[in-house]
């Protein structure tokens, strides 16, 4: 049997069938066995009864994206699975396990020419008291992947502890039955043993690492208005902020949420909120207030398909325009984008640091894919960025909150500081903060806010720049992982391709960009947006070589490494 570096599994079932639980148990068991992995879920908008699938990739090395094709597809049932047939592509080498009473295979799966095996999953579950089909599926997958019954048994015990003995024993019986049913089956490949384990590993989602990054950066107040797919950030912060002396408050709407964090930050407490596109639209006015009044705040936008309500449960990279251009007036602010589940930690922490240092709002553009995906990953390295706001200790009467200085940042008086009283204002104001409509004050304060962002040294964190070569991929956010994997495949064929993925989208970094692009003659731009927003953003702010191609498409279908690889290969011929 050939040994492979990674293997992809999809477990499909209508809502309530437990496909997602199967996926979670499988990932956890694989992590115990020493493998790395990634799990994303694809679900419909229904809370119960809709279609659902767990998409898993297990590997002997860290992985940041899903593969283009599933090696093993298990359908507990196929109810409504046609709705996401394109997301569970299989090939001729794939093994598809289907319940004979589970409905018809999705057309796209049936056409693929995969080996299809029938296993009466539901009947087998019925034969076990309290038995559930998803545990049969777990047993099937475990055996085919070479995961031992012992490991899964421990995971079941741990995860179902609250459900009691009966549930645990029923699940174990299901697992055993599934393993037995897989005895005659063959996946046709074996996952290579894990590479030597050195680092501490985490089982974590991007929304969780975002929450941790916020607290590590210094955030001690969060305002929360629930929205898919950002709620998990707020739900992680809710119990954890109080543990470090912080507070989370549920707001009545996104307008309140952002104004609450402005109030908290004005009082000296670093503050954050998390939302998705519709919420970001509502927060835009107050982002302008934070810009004008120079109040540091962080807004995480976990992007989903838009416009309007769009597809709440699925990923897209189409909020770039609103994040960069959405504010009225000339309103310099920070826009950052994490590139992976672990980078959500770094980028959020860095965003808090930059916001606090520069007294400006920061928008962090995460997305549904990295936000809700769960990875088995190496523990990210600690970073030193902790928000440090320049605080004023003024003498009575002389304090100028918005004093124009060379660097543009003026020390901020925090309420409670004697002699620092001033009124923060969204009206154009002079150095003392007093409203004015004078041309001179208006220009001086616009200059000041611009200067402080432009003159700051952001360092190498502004972008991921890897490799050499005259051909470069430019991408951003969660597509960085897929682009990196495509480049690795092309490199194996002896061609070098450069990867340039900005983490800092505003303020733009023309000098660093020019340096990163030195020697590049051709650029492939890769993004998940119908309107090619990233391409237009690059055109607006940077000089690109003549030879540019764009691989772009809206969500919800992810752009997989093989598509990027093909685009690169076509170009080189």
């Amino acid at each position, binding site marked *: 049997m050939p040994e492979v570096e990674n293997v992809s599994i999809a477990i499909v079932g209508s809502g309530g069938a437990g496909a997602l639980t199967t996926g979670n148990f499988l990932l956890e068991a694989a992590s115990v066995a020493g493998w790395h992995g990634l799990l994303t879920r694809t679900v419909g908008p229904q809370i119960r009864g809709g279609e659902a699938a767990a998409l898993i990739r297990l590997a002997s090395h860290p992985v940041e994206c899903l593969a283009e094709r599933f090696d093993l597809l298990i359908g507990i049932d196929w109810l409504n699975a046609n709705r996401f047939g394109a997301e569970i592509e299989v090939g001729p080498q794939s093994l598809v396990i289907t319940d004979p009473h589970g409905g018809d295979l999705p057309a796209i799966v049936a056409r693929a020419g995969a080996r299809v095996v029938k296993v009466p999953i539901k009947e087998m579950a019925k034969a076990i008291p309290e038995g559930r089909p998803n545990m049969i599926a777990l047993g099937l997958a475990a055996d085919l992947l070479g995961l031992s019954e012992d490991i899964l048994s421990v995971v079941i015990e741990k995860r179902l502890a609250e459900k009691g003995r009966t549930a645990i024993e029923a699940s174990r019986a299901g697992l055993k039955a599934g393993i037995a049913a897989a005895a005659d089956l063959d996946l046709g490949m074996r996952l290579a043993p894990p590479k030597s384990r050195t680092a501490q590993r985490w089982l974590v989602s991007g929304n969780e690492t975002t929450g941790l990054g916020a607290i590590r950066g210094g955030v001690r*107040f969060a305002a929360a208005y629930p929205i898919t797919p950002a709620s998990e950030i707020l739900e992680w912060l809710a119990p954890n902020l109080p*543990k*470090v*002396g912080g507070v989370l408050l549920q707001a009545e709407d996104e*307008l309140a949420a952002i*104004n609450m964090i*402005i109030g908290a930050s004005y009082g000296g407490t670093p503050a954050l909120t998390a939302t998705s596109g519709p919420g970001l639209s509502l927060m835009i006015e107050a982002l*302008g207030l934070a810009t004008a009044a120079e109040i540091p705040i962080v807004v995480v936008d976990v992007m989903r398909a838009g416009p309007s309500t769009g597809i709440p449960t699925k990923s897209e990279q189409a909020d770039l325009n609103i994040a960069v251009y959405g504010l009225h007036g000339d309103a310099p602010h920070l826009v950052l984008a994490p590139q992976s589940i672990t980078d959500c930690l770094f980028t959020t922490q860095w965003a808090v640091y930059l916001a606090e240092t520069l007294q400006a709002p920061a928008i962090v553009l995460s997305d549904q894919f990295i936000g809700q995906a769960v990875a088995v990953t190496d523990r990210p390295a600690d970073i030193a960025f902790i928000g440090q706001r320049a605080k004023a200790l003024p003498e009575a009467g002389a304090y100028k909150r918005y004093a124009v200085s060379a660097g543009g940042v003026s020390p901020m008086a925090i309420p409670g500081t004697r002699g620092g009283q001033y009124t*923060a204002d969204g009206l154009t104001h002079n150095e003392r903060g007093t409203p004015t409509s004078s041309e001179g004050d208006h220009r001086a304060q616009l200059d000041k806010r611009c200067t402080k962002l432009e003159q700051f040294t952001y360092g190498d964190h502004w972008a991921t720049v890897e490799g050499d070569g005259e051909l470069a991929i430019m991408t951003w956010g969660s597509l960085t992982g897929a682009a990196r994997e495509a480049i690795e495949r092309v490199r194996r064929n002896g061609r070098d391709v450069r990867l340039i993925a900005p983490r800092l989208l505003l303020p733009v970094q023309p000098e660093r960009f020019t340096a990163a692009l030195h020697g590049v003659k051709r650029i492939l731009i890769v993004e998940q947006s119908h309107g090619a927003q990233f391409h237009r953003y690059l055109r607006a702010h940077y000089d690109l070589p003549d030879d540019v191609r764009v691989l772009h498409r809206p969500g919800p279908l992810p752009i997989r490494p093989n598509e990027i690889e093909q685009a690169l290969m076509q170009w080189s011929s």
Partner: protein
Amino acid sequence: MSSIQTRLACNPADYKSDIKPIWCPGCGDYHVLMSFTRAFAELGLLPEKTVVVSGIGCSSRIPAYTSCYGFHGVHGRSLALATGLKVTRPDLTVVVASGDGDGYSIGGNHFLHACRRNVDITYVVMDNRVYGMTKGQPSPTTEPDFDTALSPGGTGLSPFHPLVIALAAGANFVARAFSGSPNETASILVEAIRHPGFSFVEVLSPCVTFRPDEREWKNRVHPAPVAATNDPGKAARRIMTDDGFNIGILYRGNRLPYQAKAEPRTIDLAELEREFEL
């Protein structure tokens, strides 16, 4: 506000800034500013420990006219901003200033939830029944037949009852004041700031420019005939049936103010990642 640091022997003038108000001559808001400074002086508040938060409109210009910390934010969101401030800085006295457009129209939802949440802040709405800063459009408290360029012949809509809404939503202190009686208004503000939880004070404050008829309010206002109750139902019934010019404290509730949940002990940041470890 029992925990808040104060000092003795203050002068109302200590709470005024040197910025000249933009209000029209004769505007009721001048008297509200006077009531603010008198109340702050009577309470002996430290200006550096007091924050006046507002939204947009004539009344919302008040923070910069005090010597306290201030925040003149966006239209309608002052209560949300003040809530974020107060829950993270319970050591500060937070007073929110608003108007009938800012507070009841664009900010209506925040009004409901601030009452319900019952954070220890004082909310002062200067009600002149008109949008003054945008030159005379009808607000939620404007009479149905008030003729304006935006509502020729009037809106035909009944004004609503902010005080009753506050009671229904859970405000812990409800009062009505009249700007033309600054001493009385200051006394009400003192009580409102002292009362724990969310205190709501509606100040009838005439707009002499767009509502010259409101100059007559001074002849219509009268002290509330009965003392404040702690029964919101009774208070609501009185307010629904009075003539709208009853001045005084109308309701004092006993609800405990909102308190952020605190953990008995805080942990080291490094402990937060334990749940992710394999």
